[in-house]
């Protein structure tokens, strides 16, 4: 249990640093979700299952969705309309994935 705690806390701190240092904002949002997920494991370890559930549902799930939606609306994350095949397109012309 002790080393699991140390590992989870280390993951939490490293991904918190990644939130600040990653140049790509989408990756930073993903790192903040990792922080919340590790934090919910820590809450389980310190006997707070209610808080762990809330943190997992809100911090790791919902807040990530809201942040990514906001990135999309801010124009900071493009869906790459030209470079990637759209759902309706056929996959034949996309080249190097064979």
């Amino acid at each position: 249990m002790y080393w699991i705690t140390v590992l989870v806390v280390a993951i939490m701190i490293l991904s918190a640093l990644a939130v600040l240092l990653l140049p790509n904002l989408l990756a930073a949002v993903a790192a903040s979700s990792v922080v919340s997920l590790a934090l919910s494991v820590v809450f389980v370890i310190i006997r707070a299952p209610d808080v762990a559930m809330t943190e997992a549902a809100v911090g790791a799930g919902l807040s990530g969705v809201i942040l990514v939606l906001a990135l999309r609306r801010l124009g900071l994350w493009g869906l790459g309309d030209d470079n990637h095949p759209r759902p309706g397109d056929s996959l034949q012309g996309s080249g190097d994935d064979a």
Partner: protein
Amino acid sequence: MRNFTSLLFAGGLGFFLLVLAADLPVGAAPMVAGEGILGQGPEAVGAANLVTAVVLAYRGIDTLGELSILFAAAAGVGLILSGMRRRADQRPDPEGGFILLAAADLLFPLLVIVGLYIVLHGHLTPGGGFQGGVILAAAFFLPLLGRPGDSLNHAVVNWVEGLAGGAFVLIGLWALAVKGDFLAPMLGKGALGSLFSAGTLPLLYIAVGLKVGAEIAGLMSTLQETEAAEP
């Protein structure tokens, strides 16, 4: 230079906090109010989950305040983004692929069931209105992720939110009239650990779950309907 002073500030603050933390009674923190709640909570409230007893019975008025903060935040988002609604001639996001569409249809009923289960069993197991409400909001938002052209019916969302909030306050006022305390537990405690126990606590948690779910689903739908900025 600015970064250096910022780092110095953050490091100093960290040192200060660690010095304070070294003074904390590590390992055997004294419980002042918690001891009493742990001792008499199960008999006085009848909820197996003592966190629920604190949230809805001992600190019920705090929860009401929290719900109003959430309402203010959701209303603020609606107000700020009201002038940025996507116009009819603007193209929404492209529709999701087959996997997202199929998964949204498949997961919707399962998520609704899980959310309702967590809301209804909040007084017995970990979980409750807040967690279940968030899962319900996710269930209703998932189809919008696949089909960005659609939108939630905001009138229905607002009605659910208002009725749930009103129900919470009405149950509290009812307790005030009968027992003399706002949000005092009522309706008999039942057998500890069964679904129909803990009096009005499950009803209050259903109201909280519906209110939180409606607010967050409306909030995400508002964000979804906002026009995208030109890059």
